[in-house]
């Protein structure tokens, strides 16, 4: 384990280079690249607003600005998670040539996929900040929580990314299963709704480790509150576990990569 981490550190330049390549290729046509980073979050935010509007109509509660802000804040990290998992899942298959021909720590591929998606998240965040300023969300000291929550999200995405990347190399249908899970995952994750809407049953939704992170972001940005500490600790623990488990799983399968393709 220690050796493997040392080696990964030695190849950090390559991680940077592959990430740079992935971003560069995606943003080669700058207009399209920028749209790509914005398109998915914008679509999610718009569907979220429609869902919240419908909910408001049914419950005879008017749609508040804070609700819109909350949906917008939660959509971006969700879009990040979806795109990192999707890109990691294909990262080894798309780089078969390198996987089978040249030696280096292969976890660089899913990691670079996550980092490239993180870059998209930053681009989209720029747009989000403007949006939040326009709707006068305001700010508070709780914003310091953002980096911690985002880092937890990145750790979680990397862990899952490594698992699906390795698995999809051996089983070609993993890709489709992941795609289905990502599509319907949004209904099991508090993106369009708040956990509080479910009352006591809400805690079952927070068992999904992504839930507390999104709720935390919504709390500190849209509602100016502190995130729920114990649920945050749960997510962080889960993310670390996924990262460790994903790394061990990946490293265990890595020697067989060249033979399976």
């Amino acid at each position, binding site marked *: 384990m220690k050796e493997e981490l040392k080696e990964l550190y030695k190849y950090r*330049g*390559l991680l940077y*280079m*592959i990430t740079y*390549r992935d971003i*560069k*290729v995606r943003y*080669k046509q700058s207009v399209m690249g920028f749209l790509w980073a914005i398109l998915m979050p914008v679509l999610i935010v718009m569907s979220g607003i429609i869902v919240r509007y419908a909910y408001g109509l049914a419950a005879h509660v008017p749609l508040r600005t804070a609700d819109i802000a909350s949906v917008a804040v939660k959509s971006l990290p969700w879009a990040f998670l979806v795109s990192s998992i999707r890109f990691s899942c294909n990262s080894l298959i798309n780089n078969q*040539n*390198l996987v*089978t*021909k*040249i*030696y*280096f720590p292969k976890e660089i591929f899913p990691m670079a996929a996550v980092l490239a998606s993180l870059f998209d998240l930053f681009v989209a965040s720029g747009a989000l900040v403007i949006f939040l300023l326009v709707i006068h969300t305001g700010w508070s000291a709780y914003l310091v929580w953002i980096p911690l929550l985002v880092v937890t999200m990145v750790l979680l995405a990397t862990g899952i990314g490594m698992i699906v990347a390795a698995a999809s190399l*051996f*089983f*070609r*249908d*993993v890709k489709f*299963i992941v795609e289905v899970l990502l599509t319907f995952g949004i209904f099991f994750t508090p993106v369009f709704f708040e956990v509080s809407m479910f009352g006591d049953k809400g805690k079952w939704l927070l068992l999904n480790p992504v839930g507390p992170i999104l709720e935390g972001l919504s709390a500190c940005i849209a509602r100016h509150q502190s995130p729920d500490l114990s649920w945050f600790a749960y997510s962080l623990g889960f993310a670390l576990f996924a990262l460790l488990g994903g790394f061990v799983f990946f490293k265990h399968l890595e*020697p067989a990569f*060249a*033979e*399976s393709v």
Partner: protein
Amino acid sequence: MSDVALRMEHVYKKFRKGEIYNSLRDLLPALTGRMFQQRELRENDKREFWALQDLSFEVKRGEAFGIIGQNGAGKSTALKILSRIMKPTKGCMVVDGRLSALIEVTAGFHQDLTGRENIFLHGTILGMTKREIESKLDQIIAFSGIEEFIDTPVKRYSTGMFARLGFSVAAHVDPEVLIVDEVLSVGDYVFQRKCVDRMKEVIRGGATVLFVSHNLRSVAEFCQRALLLDKGRTVSVGSAQEVIAAYLNRSGREHATDANSSPVSISKVTVRSESGECCQFQSGQKAWIDVELIARSRCSKLSVSLYIRDEYSTLVFNTSTERLGHGNFTLEEGEAFLCTFELQLNMATGIFHPSILVYRYDTQTEYDRWETAATIYVGSPDDVQGFVHCFPKVVRHEIRAASDGRLTAIALDASRGGKCSAE
């Protein structure tokens, strides 16, 4: 640091033939099926095969070591294990020093990036740091010879340009241990020469080189020692010359023609020197090729033809008994015929394959043909290159004093096959 740069100890590699479950949809039913059927499991084991068995060798620091063998002998597997892409099933492998593999020189390229961007990307993949690449960038671009197009996306490159850029990056890695697989066949002749020179430079620089090739000529040119693999097993290890001889002795002895249907067939072809059967010769040495025919029914106006091709199947030499004034012989049923060609091997260094053809002279009917009846290796002590040996000598070698303000020097360069060059 020890003086051994690379060592393999009793390395075994097993592969599984046949069906591998590559989707969960297939795997899950198979797993449940397997729980009930123990027999299937055992049959699965039979489908394994060993790509490498008990491979052991050592390469000393600064040595160039060749691995030769036919397709499927396990060369590529050995390389993949050495470059750590695959793990051996059993045994161990030690590499001491920075290792670089020239296996697939363009693997790291991305179509949408420009040549310059790809140099950085590929260089990093091959283990160079960004600073290292920056310092060598000009050298790499100059070596590739595509300065003009360096800022064009590589998807617009021709295959040759692509490969040249790939090799240029790979050739500037400055490894301590270099693994080379059939990459010297990249680009045109001029570029190939450049590559070979660069390889020699790397070797002179003290790097250890492991060279895998079908091209016996380059193995002979580069390597001091070599190893011959056949079906995953080591057949011989030793000096490059010995191992090449062992390889030549094993190959090219199969006679494809269906002998029973033909009225005359070639039963035996042997190549020998003064001292008996032989496959290694020196330029200018004499060789005798013995041909034996057997007639199944009466045949007349026969002639035996000898073709010699080089390793690229280019015809180097052709003659026949008829053209040498011994044609038109007739064989009765059951008679055997023996003839011997005496040749003076005036070729330059290379691998040559004699082929024998029996035909009826007037109707040009072919009775039997033995392609690659033997393989011979021709070497020359003075490293003559090209097709033929013109037995060059330098008969004048002088520098004249500058008389009218111009300095004239004429050199006869023996190493270029006797061609004159003024410098």
